[in-house]
């Protein structure tokens, strides 16, 4: 079943075309990576899927109701005046969940991302990786059907990045939301996604789609397998071709 789909979607801004025409369907529980050069419209595609933006032409079909879509942005985007717990509880609060229950679910979500004990901390007291985990907990607290991640790890160091990639897949395994994430990083895409969609230089169109073999979450040593290496190479080649196109 499809959670969200873009059909013949185009986005044009006053300064020129930004995206498409593009067809992209996201299946229930699927993990899809969107890869492409800067300015190809990856983030725009994500906002279309989230329902935060309307296309200039074409159609966006979204199954999730309000509150069933969650977005994690490039920066943690936490409210500095709220504790980690209150930040995570915010979507619940906006959905009208009673405070006591929201608090309990926020604490549970923080526990799932490995931040038990940091509930009362303010964003300014957290490291970049921890803040990103809070952001992830906030996205997961509503148990979304569709989780959209816009280059969520771009600002983090390689070790934190890899740890978070495994965490996201671990969390995915618990409730199996459909995930679409945007990244510049070919290896990250091939590691985290069951399908990698490569976009051309802007206005982005599909340059190639690649199914990545193997189970999610990835077993230890997955990055060393020939399958992973070949997939990453193929994605890289398509990306290079897309940029040249």
């Amino acid at each position, binding site marked *: 079943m499809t959670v969200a789909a873009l059909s013949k979607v185009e986005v044009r801004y006053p300064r020129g075309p930004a995206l498409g025409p593009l067809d992209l369907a996201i299946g229930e529980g699927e993990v899809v990576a969107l890869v492409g050069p800067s300015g190809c419209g990856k983030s725009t595609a994500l*906002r279309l899927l*989230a*329902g*935060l933006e309307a296309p200039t032409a074409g159609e966006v079909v979204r199954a999730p109701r*309000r*509150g069933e*879509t*969650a*977005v994690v*942005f490039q*920066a943690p*985007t936490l*409210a*500095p*005046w*709220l*504790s980690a717990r209150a930040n995570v509880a*915010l*979507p619940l*609060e*906006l*959905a009208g969940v009673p405070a006591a229950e929201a608090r309990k679910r926020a604490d549970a979500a923080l526990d799932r991302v490995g931040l038990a004990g940091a509930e009362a*901390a*303010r*964003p*300014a*007291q957290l490291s970049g990786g921890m803040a990103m985990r809070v952001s992830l907990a906030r996205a997961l607290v509503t148990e979304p059907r569709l989780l959209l991640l816009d280059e969520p790890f771009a600002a983090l160091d390689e070790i934190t990045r890899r740890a978070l990639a495994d965490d996201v897949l671990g969390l995915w395994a618990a409730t199996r939301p459909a995930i679409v994430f945007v990244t510049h990083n070919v290896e990250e895409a091939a590691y985290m996604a069951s399908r990698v969609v490569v976009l051309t230089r802007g206005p982005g169109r599909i340059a190639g789609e690649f199914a990545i073999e193997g189970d999610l979450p990835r077993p230890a040593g997955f990055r060393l397998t020939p399958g992973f290496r070949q997939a990453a190479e193929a994605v890289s080649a398509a990306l290079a071709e897309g940029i040249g196109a």
Partner: protein
Amino acid sequence: MRRLAYHLAPFALTAVLLLAWEIACRALDVPAYFLPPPSAVAVALAEHFPTLLAAAWRTLSTALIALVLASLVAQALALLTALSPLLDRAIRPLASVVQVTPVIALAPLVLIWAGLDHPERALVALALVVAFFPIFSGAAAGLRSADPDLERLFDLYGASPWRRVLRLRLPAAVPFLLEGHKVGAGLALIGAVVAEFGAGSGQVTGLAWQILDAGNKLQTARMIAALVVLGVMGVALHAALERLERVGLKWWRGR
């Protein structure tokens, strides 16, 4: 030692200047009505201290009442501009008019409106006009300062406009509000003094009247003593608000 010198430097310079002033007055035999020496100012200060303090309190209370009222009006209007682009368009030019009009030019009109029996109301109104703009523009900017991605998050979860204001835009505006109130408080004090000069009547007995009255009687030492009290009050108010801003920001950021 260096630290000590660093902290003492402004006091040392003040002491040197006062000493030079005292010596110059004595050596050049300057008449006291023209420029009294600091020692004479100190005597005047001691002699008139209770009166000056009472006058200072009247000026300060005018400024503080004006600040509270300006804060309420400015924030209410800023909220309206945040809720409706049309109101924003309507209100902003008028707010700018208030900012660029010199308070002294408004004084005669406001004194008529307040009624000759209530010049203190006119003083509050005039100080309010001066304190209004920095608080309004701070609040208006602050209410638009929320992270655009946080705004998108509120879109995503379908927050109502009021929810958005209460849970996102107002808290995001706190640093701007603190700064706006700090500037506004300083201006309210200046506005109160200028308005007292504008009122210029014996019924308004704040520090400005003390200065005018002493001037009329050629009591130059008392005039300068009143200025000293005004200066000390201004510095104290600024320091208090600076501290309030620091504490407020620390609370807001959590560290």
